[in-house]
Structure formats: C-alpha cells, structure tokens
C-alpha cells in the first residue's frame, strides 16, 4: 500500500468498517463516531429482536393457556337435578333383609323413571318418555343404588336426591347449547326445554362442583367421565420409572464419571447415551413392545410395562444430568477426601454424590416430567385404550393422563370438549408442580464454589 492510495477513500469499502480501518487511513473523529453509532444501533436491533422473540413466545403460550382455561373452566361444574324419589320397601327389599345383594339388584332406574313420569303426567308418547328419562344421566341409577346401599334406613320413605343431569342438559344449563336456534338443529328439543323450565322454576336444577371428574374412571357418557383412572395409571408408571430410572441412571453415571477408565469403549458408551437422549419416543414404545410384551410376556396395557418403557426413555436424561452434576463438583473435594485417607468409594459416596445431589434431583424430576407427558410410546404397548375400572395394581390395565386427553379430544360428544380442556389443565398443573419442585430443590441445596 503506497502513500498515494492511503489518502483515498475507496467507495466500495464504505460498508466494511473493519477492512477500512485496517487498510484505510486512521479514521477521523466523525467517522469513528459514526462507527460507534452504527455499532450501538446494531446492538439495539439485536436486543429488540430478542425481546420480540420472547414476546411472541409468551403471547403464544398465553393464547394456549387462555383457550384451554376458557374452554375448560366449565367442566369443573356439573348440573344436578333434584328429584323427590319414593323408596318403597316392597320394591327395593320386600322381605326387609337389608342385605346389600338384595338392595343392589333393585330396579333403581325404574324408581327414577316413575318419579319423572309422575311429575309430567301428560307425557305418553314412547319417544317422548325416552327423552324425559334422558334428562338425568344413565349413571344416576347406579349412584342412587350406592347411596341407598350405604344407608338402608332411607328405604320406605320419600327423599330428595340430587341426580347427575345428562350431558346435553348440562350443556344447555351452562349455555353451550343455544336455546334460540331452530329445534331441528338443536340437541335439546323443545319439549325438553319445557320440562327443564318447569324443573328450574321449582328450584330443582343446580350446578355443583364436579367431583365426578376427579373421582371416576373413563366413561362414554361425558357427565360420568373422570380422570381418576388415568391419574392412578400415571402415578403407577411414574413410580416404576422413579424406582428404576433414577437408581440405574445415577449408578451408571457415577461409574462412568468417577470410576471408569477413559478408553475407547467408555467414549463409545458416552456418545451413545447422548444419542439415546435424542431418539424419538415412539422408538422406545416399539422397543417396549418387542422386549416387554413379546419376549417377557408381560400383560398388555399395564402401567408396569408403561413404566418400564418410560424408564428406557428417561434413563439418558438422568445419566446426562447426573454426569453434569458430578462434573460440577470441584476436584479439590475428591482430592481432599483421598488425601485424608478415604477410599475412592468413600470419597464419592460421602462427599461427591451428596454435593451433586441438587443437580441429580433436578435432572431426574425434569426427566420424570417429560415422561409424564408422553403418549407415543404408550400407543405401542396398548395403553391408549378405553378403560373404565380404576387400576388397583401396576398390573391392571390402565391409561395415563395425556392418553385420556387424546381419547376425549377424539370423542364426538360436545361435552367432552370442555372435559378435554379440564384434563389438560390438571396435567399442566402436575407438570408445573414438578418443575417448581425441581427449582425449589436447586435453590435450597445449591452450593456455590
């Protein structure tokens, strides 16, 4: 570069400040100011973009939560219709034995029907009678039976019972079904509206907190469907996962990190554990099907198998988190312990592991939370199924919470829409709780070095 060219500003170099600085003359004060201004502007733009990304993400999340909450809140209430039902001794328990098997076999549906017919004596047409019976849920008779069995002294007199209304009536009372559309396009017909108006004027219709949603298993009738079966199924699966994934994961991570010699083999294992963490979850489902069902012949749809499959999925997460936690414990701790005459195992078990515990717990809880939200691996092992009975052991057929959401979302009945959203809210609450626990444990036990 000669002195002659040094004084000239080449036009194409204007946009490339670094090159200009290196090749051109020393920039003037104004030029330098200009460069600084540009740099600040770029920085401001970068910050704005970051902020924009966060705003977009937050508003999408807000939108999701809002739509779930606005749809789901209604499911926490359920309409009940109060009827004065006569419980004649001669129909329920003619011999006065009081035995549960005698009372259990009585025709409680008939008693409910008779009460309704007596309240609306003009209804004679067969189809209309069917519609009248349909105001209360088909599950109301079972509920009435259980209540009478629990208290046989009710038999022989009249009592007011609040009975679960059917899903269409419930939707009508909640205002989801619009009274003002033409009758042919409405699930609830004009005569049903008239009956409901009479019942409402009598003060017999009320909405209560929906305990069924939290205490029952699945049902094809939306008003009788609950998430308890799925919650229990998820609980058993989490239990199996917790007791297998955490000990195995922590043990293998500790061995690999603290004891194993650095050889090609351990490197190979390390790379593969990291790879496993990225494998799509459906693959673990296929593995579960091939190993646990086809080789070990464990029962289909059982939470035990679900838990084992989710263990496979959670293991890499636990191993990776544990190794990171162990690595963050300073070597001076190990060296001090060894220097005081502790054996390798003592140094690890007494000093390193307890100090790494917050990190291990956080990793494990986040892995478990991931497993709680999985449906794909469960599909292959038959847990995506309609199961009414609440599982009593991890070997009984069961579903999981996310599966229940999936099944309800696929159901034609309109009342399942709000229950789907309610189940999503419950699942989200569990996930937030688990993540909050992870944050709490980290805050509480974290050590700064």
């Amino acid at each position: 570069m000669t002195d002659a060219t040094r004084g000239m500003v080449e036009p194409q170099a204007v946009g490339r400040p670094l090159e200009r600085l290196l090749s051109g003359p020393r920039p003037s004060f104004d030029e330098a100011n200009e460069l600084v201004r540009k740099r600040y502007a770029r920085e401001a733009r970068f910050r704005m973009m970051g902020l924009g990304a966060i705003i977009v993400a937050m508003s999408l999340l807000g939108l999701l939560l809002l739509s779930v909450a606005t749809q789901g809140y209604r499911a926490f209430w359920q309409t009940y219709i109060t009827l004065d039902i006569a419980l004649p001794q001669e129909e329920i328990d003619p011999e006065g034995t009081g035995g549960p098997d005698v009372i259990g076999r009585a025709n409680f549906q008939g008693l409910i029907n008779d009460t309704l017919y007596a309240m609306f004596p003009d209804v004679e047409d067969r189809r209309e009678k069917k519609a009248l019976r349909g105001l209360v849920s088909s599950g109301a008779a079972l509920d009435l039976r259980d209540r009478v069995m629990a208290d046989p002294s009710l038999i022989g007199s009249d009592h007011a019972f609040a009975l679960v209304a059917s899903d269409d009536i419930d939707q009508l009372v909640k205002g989801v079904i619009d009274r003002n559309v033409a009758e042919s396009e409405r699930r609830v017909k004009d005569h049903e509206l008239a009956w409901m108006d009479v019942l409402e004027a009598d003060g017999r219709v009320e909405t209560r907190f929906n305990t069924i949603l939290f205490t029952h298993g699945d049902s094809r009738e939306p008003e009788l469907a609950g998430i308890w079966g799925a919650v229990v199924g998820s609980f058993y699966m989490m239990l199996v996962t917790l007791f297998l994934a955490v000990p195995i994961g922590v043990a293998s991570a500790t061995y690999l990190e603290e004891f194993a010699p650095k050889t090609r083999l351990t490197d190979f294992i390390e790379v593969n554990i990291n790879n496993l963490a990225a494998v799509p979850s459906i693959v673990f489902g296929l593995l579960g099907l091939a190993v646990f069902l086809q080789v070990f012949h464990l029962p289909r749809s059982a939470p035990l198998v679900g838990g084992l499959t989710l263990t496979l999925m959670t293991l890499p997460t636990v191993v990776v988190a544990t190794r990171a936690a162990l690595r963050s414990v300073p070597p001076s701790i190990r060296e001090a312990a060894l220097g005081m005459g502790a054996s390798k195992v003592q140094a690890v078990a007494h000093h390193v592991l307890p100090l790494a515990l917050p990190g291990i717990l956080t990793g494990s809880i986040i892995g478990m939370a991931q497993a709680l939200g999985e449906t794909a691996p469960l599909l292959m092992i038959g847990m995506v199924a309609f199961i009414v009975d609440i599982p009593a052991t991890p070997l009984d057929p069961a579903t999981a919470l996310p599966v229940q959401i999936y099944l309800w979302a696929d159901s034609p009945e309109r009342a399942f829409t709000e229950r789907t959203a309610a189940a999503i809210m419950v699942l989200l609450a569990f996930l937030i709780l688990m993540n909050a626990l992870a944050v709490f444990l980290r805050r509480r036990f974290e050590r700064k070095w």
Partner: protein
Amino acid sequence: MRKILLSTAALAAIAAAGEAQARDQIRIVGSSTVFPFSTAVAEQFGNKTDFATPVVESTGSGGGLKLFCEGVGENTPDITNSSRRIKSSEVELCATNGVKDVTEVKVGFDGIVLANSKEGPKLNVSREQIFLALAKQVPVDGQLVDNPYTNWHEIDASLPDEKIEVLGPPPTSGTRDAFVELVMEEACESFPEIEALDGDAKDAACATMREDGAFIEAGENDNLIVNKLKENPVALGIFGFSFLDQNLDVMQGSQVDGVDPTFDAIAAGDYPVSRSLYFYVKNAHADVVPGIREYIAEFTSDAAFGDDGYLADKGLIPLPEEDREEVRSQANNLQPLSL
C-alpha cells in the same frame, strides 16, 4: 449396585406374578369408527354384570385384524372391531396362525357425510361431481388430464360459485377407505374414459385424490375437521355421521345424489355413502375368557343396537329389524364365518 440388584429382583417377581395371573377381562381392539359404540357397550356390560369392564383399544380396522389374527392365547385380543368386512387374505392369515373359527357380527351402519358450516351454501352434489372435484385425474374431452377444476361452478352450473376446498381424513383412516370405495370408485364407473383403462391404471385413476391443495388431509381427528370448518365457511369436510349429528347447530350436511344425510335416510339405505360396521369374535376364546358370550348378548340386545337403543343415541344407525334377528341368533350361537 445393591439398588440395581434389588430393583431387578423386584421386577422379576412382578413379571412372574403377571405370568401366573389369568386374564379375567375381555380385550377388544380395532376400528376407531366402532370404538365409541364398542366402548359404550363395554361400559354398560361392566355396570350390568359382575364381569370386569372390557378393555377397548382403538387401533384402526387393519391394525386390529392383524393383532386379532396373531394367534390364540391370553396375549391376543378376543374381539376386533372393523369398519369394513374382513378380507379373505386376513381370514387366511388367521387360519395359518391357528385362529380357525371366527364369528362375524354386523352391528349397524355408519354414514359418511360431506358437510360445511351453516354460513356457507348448502350443496346438492352427485357422486360424479364429487369425483370431478376431488380426483387427481379427471376425463375432459375424452382425455384423462390433471384435475383442472378450482371452483364448484366449473363442474356444474347448478353448484355454487365457490372455491373447491375439501378437508378429509388421511389414507390411514378407515373413513378414507370407505369414502374412496363408496364415492370415488362408484362414480368412476360412469366415466367411459376411465372404464377403458385396464386393471391397475383404472384402480389408481379411481382411488387417487388430488394433491394440488383442493383436497386437504386434515388428520384422523374428526373434531379437528369440524372445528376447521367452523372457521372457514367455504371449506367442506368429510367425516362420520356422528360428528355431524352432534354439531347440527353449526354444520349442514350436503345432499348426495339428492338425499340429505339424516338418521332415517341412512337407516333406510337411501343415502348412498354408508357402510356396515362389524366386530369379529375369536370362538376359541369364548369359553376361556369369562364374559364373551354375555358381551355379545349385550351388544346384540335391542336395548343396545335396536332402533331406540343407547347405541342409536351415540350415532350408530341400526340394522333393519329382520336383519337384527338374524345377526342376534348367529352371534349368540357363535356361528363361524365362512367367506
């Protein structure tokens, strides 16, 4: 290390217990279309009898028959639901795996509707017009060409001046199979240009849906299609009758060949796009797994699949009365299927 040993031992113990425990509940797999009906019967059966409530999985018709034909034994399902008849290849597969006697039970009909939002125009289409709107290749002036139609109006002057936009199920769905069979393949026969083709080329021309954006595969979930249609009044959707029945306040079904998709029209066989629904029972299991005979009796009782039964409330379209009698006696006697 001791922990690992302990948990392995615990696992082995649980596994052994699982092996020893005999299955006491019925296992049902199969079609997602029959699923809502099958589960309703399972629930009633569980409430009415002392047997455990059957476990029902929704695996699709093909997937269900595959599991069903895997063999006889505790780890195979007892019953599979199907939204189409069992194929002869599947009967052979069953037989080679030792599933010899299978009882077929026809339970009713399901209509497939072409529907749109009430805000849009109500259509009256023929199956030929649906074919012209949705097939990948259509005959124009004696030649098979890539589907040129973008507006219903172009197909026939009687149809509304609206863009062709149809949301439908993906090829994995039984509803799609039935739609292709009942609409596309039927309509195809009235076009001499396609009839002139031979074998495979003809099948492909009849069954291939267009891929240029006018037909959109909207996923297996019919509720999702209904929701998308509410947002977009121009679009039409293809889904099962029960979903139209539940959403009649916002959706309208198009007339096909001049017939409205109503409960009565489908039951009478007037509405052309309807199919039969079935379930298949493994006879070898009937005396091993408790409750199978009682489950069949519950499903084929008039309280369930009759004209006023609870399955009709769920959207199943009942068989005519005389057919029901026949189905009931064949099913309760476990009369083996012969194709």
